[in-house]
């Protein structure tokens, strides 16, 4: 698109409190009528210096802060952090931790449940941005069930602080397995209703097909991760390709973009990313079912070793004197790969923490994608990348 043609441009400040920017993102858009000539994302409204705070907290104390890195999928953030610290501890034989089997399974179960709930928010708010409010409510209705399960387990509905170095904070409550199974059955049904209502809707398809096309090469070179990367047809999923935790014990497919919108769409368009999220929910359901089949039973004792930082004495001890070193650990979050780079100088607080998040990289491609789109398409584009702003600013 030739920006320097004659014409009157309007500079629009989309955000920081715009209904479709999913938080406090500000896009400085230059438009020529409805068509956008240039776009500059402006971030930093939600910067809380979480990485710096981490340098003043003990290793296990940082877990609640990871909740706030991405509050739509706190479990996954917790998981990434505790896995990173455990990987650091595993570099030395003295501090290596033995994670209880059941705790590992619970971690995967809850990470997948949270992935479902995060994708529900993602696809739901996308439909709302497209002007359809009803599917959004239906999607959030499913998320409520997951929140209920989490609340019964750890007492919180949004920021869980559930996983801890060496295990998880509490065992599943009695009857949780049955309840989760029942929820998964209901979710499968609800997903089909949701898809019949909105995903296959021609207006909806028409809005997303061929919009904001990211080629596989662009996706890789801009550092897109997760569903955004797979939406462009790149077949890469950490859970399968670099399994962490007990992910190598489950069978699941990795959905990739395949030009789902048919002849109107193109590979890597907004609709592809949207459908990849929906298919990932179905895969997560599969994983959850396998977890529930394989999970070792609870011993039923109060001090059952699923962890808990008060319970896991070994972790407590190890964290006082962790090995000196540097580690980068990445986890597959709903918004893609989340990496925790931690540097330890052998003291009880980290020397440096650096968090790598998916939304931040997704924002970087906006400047390339937006010119030439219409205002309404920008809304679709933001939704299709499933940006969560606290994850961008941290």
């Amino acid at each position, binding site marked *: 698109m030739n920006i320097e043609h004659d014409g009157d441009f309007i500079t629009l400040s989309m955000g920081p409190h715009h209904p*479709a920017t999913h938080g406090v993102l500000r896009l400085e858009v230059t438009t020529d009528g409805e068509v956008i000539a240039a776009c500059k994302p402006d971030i930093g409204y939600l910067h809380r210096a979480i990485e710096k705070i981490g340098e003043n907290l003990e290793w296990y104390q940082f877990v609640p802060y990871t909740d706030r890195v991405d509050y739509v999928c706190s479990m996954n953030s917790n998981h990434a952090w505790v896995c990173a610290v455990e990987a650091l501890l595993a570099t030395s034989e003295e501090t290596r931790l033995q994670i209880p089997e059941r705790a590992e399974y619970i971690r995967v179960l809850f990470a997948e449940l949270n992935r479902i709930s995060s994708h529900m928010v993602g696809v739901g708010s996308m439909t709302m941005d497209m*002007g359809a409010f*009803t599917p959004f*409510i239906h999607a959030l*209705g499913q998320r409520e069930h997951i929140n209920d399960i989490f609340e019964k387990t750890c007492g919180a509905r949004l920021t869980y602080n559930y996983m801890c170095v060496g295990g998880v904070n509490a065992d599943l409550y009695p009857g949780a397995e049955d309840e989760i199974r029942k929820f998964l059955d209901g979710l499968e049904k609800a997903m089909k209703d949701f898809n019949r209502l909105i*995903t296959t809707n021609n*207006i909806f398809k*028409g809005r997303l097909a061929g919009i904001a096309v990211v080629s596989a090469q662009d996706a890789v070179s801009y550092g897109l991760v997760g569903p955004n990367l797979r939406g462009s047809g790149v077949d890469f999923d950490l859970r399968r390709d670099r399994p962490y935790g007990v992910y190598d014990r489950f069978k699941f497919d990795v959905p990739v973009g395949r030009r789902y919108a048919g002849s109107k769409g193109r590979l890597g368009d907004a609709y592809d990313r949207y459908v990849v999220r*929906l298919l990932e929910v179905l895969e997560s359901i599969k994983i959850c079912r396998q977890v529930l089949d394989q999970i070792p039973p609870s011993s039923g004792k109060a001090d059952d070793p699923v962890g808990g930082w008060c319970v896991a004495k070994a972790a407590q001890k190890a964290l006082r004197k962790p090995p000196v070193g540097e580690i980068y650990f990445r986890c597959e979050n709903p918004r893609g790969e989340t990496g925790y780079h931690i540097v330890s100088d052998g003291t009880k607080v980290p020397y440096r923490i650096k968090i790598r998040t998916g939304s931040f990289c997704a924002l970087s491609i906006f400047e390339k994608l937006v010119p030439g789109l219409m*205002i309404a398409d920008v809304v679709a584009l933001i939704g299709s990348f499933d940006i969560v702003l606290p994850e961008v600013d941290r």
Partner: protein
Amino acid sequence: MTFSVGPVSDSVASWIASFGVPATLAEIVAVLLVCCGPVLGIAFPIAGVAQYFERKIAAAMQRRKGPMVGATGVVQLVVDLAFFWQPRWKRQATVRKLENAPVIGPVLARVRQWGLGSIAADGVKMFLKEDMAPAGADKILFYGSTYLALGGAFLAFAVFPFSQWFHMGDPPVAALYLGSVTGLVAVSILKAGWSSNNKWSYFGGIRSVAMIVSYEVPITLCIAAVCMWSGTMSLQGIIAAQYQPGVASFLGWNLFQTPFMVLIAGVYYVAALAECNRAPFDLAEGESELVGGFHTEYSGLRWGLFFIAEYTDMILVGALFATMFLGGYQSPIGEEWIVSLPPLAEALVHTAIIVVKFLASIGLMMWIRWTLPRFRIDQVMKLAWTKLVPLALLGLFGLAVTQLVQAGRVGVHEVAHGRYLSAPVVHMDIQAVVVSWVLLGGAVATLVVLARKYGESRPMPKDVSDALTGKEKTA
């Protein structure tokens, strides 16, 4: 000097005069009552409470049950008062026990407070809010456009017949008049958007005008087609032309005449949705794109006026649809028993019938709104110019040919203007109806087959669509 506009106003006037009021004054009051009553007494209140129905329909579609479902409303209050000494959880348990009781439970589940108070609360809230104009706004246009919007919506009702006797006026060019006053809404939205000194409002105004100007074309074509078919531009005349004696009077309605009329009706309804800025054409106020669109800067009652104008437009669309295609205020199950009633009773029954018809239309609009996502502006334009206008032209042409074949001439029938039952109406005979339905049905079926074959060359992968929408795999 008499002002009589029919037997209803006469009887009302004589009733008023029976209190000792001078005859002339009584007649003026009666005429005002009869003319303005339905508009102010029916259209305005319905526009006011339509947001209540909207809320209820949205909640039902979204399975949001809310706190008023079951006995938690009134019954909990009664139990709270009766057992005030008990702790709260015990009182709640009592209510739950009552709800699950075998006989009383289903009854209690129906007891709700209905959330009716929110209508009044909403109104009061709007009245109490500050009436603000943004700095740099063009005050005259900013304040004036609200009245223009309301005026455009309500002026249209001046020619709208609620019954044979309830209408303000029935000019022979009512259809033309309607076309021009509904255009006022576009002007008001443009002015509102322009004068707000806000870029989002400006975009909303521009979008809305682009849309309304485009959609005026198919709408006008549809109205022209109906006027041609009925041979008159008076709304009473159009209703009269749909009169069919006998019990199955709905067979006389335009909608059931020829398939082309169904086509015209469909095009009209879609275009009218766009004309009154309803979803999926609510681009002018698309809240996820343009914050609030043209009314971003309006607050309090001024915003409320836009709101009422929107709902009045919806009523108007439903009312015109009923008038043009669904026999207006006529009942579907025979008209004779209604016209044999005394004039006032007849007028009331007819008014009730038209109200039911346009309420159904409003319900349909809300259903659409809470189901469909929004179009993009270029898609909206494309829909108007590449689909609706050709379809409307096709319908117009088809109607003209049908009429030519059936009645030997196009257009002008000798429809006695005004009072119906006296209109010499030419209806389709049964062979013509069958032949036209078969022909058009065949054409549509061919189109569908062709579209299936050549339409989407690369549909969604089969396994994916199966996984998403859950069609069982056949082994």
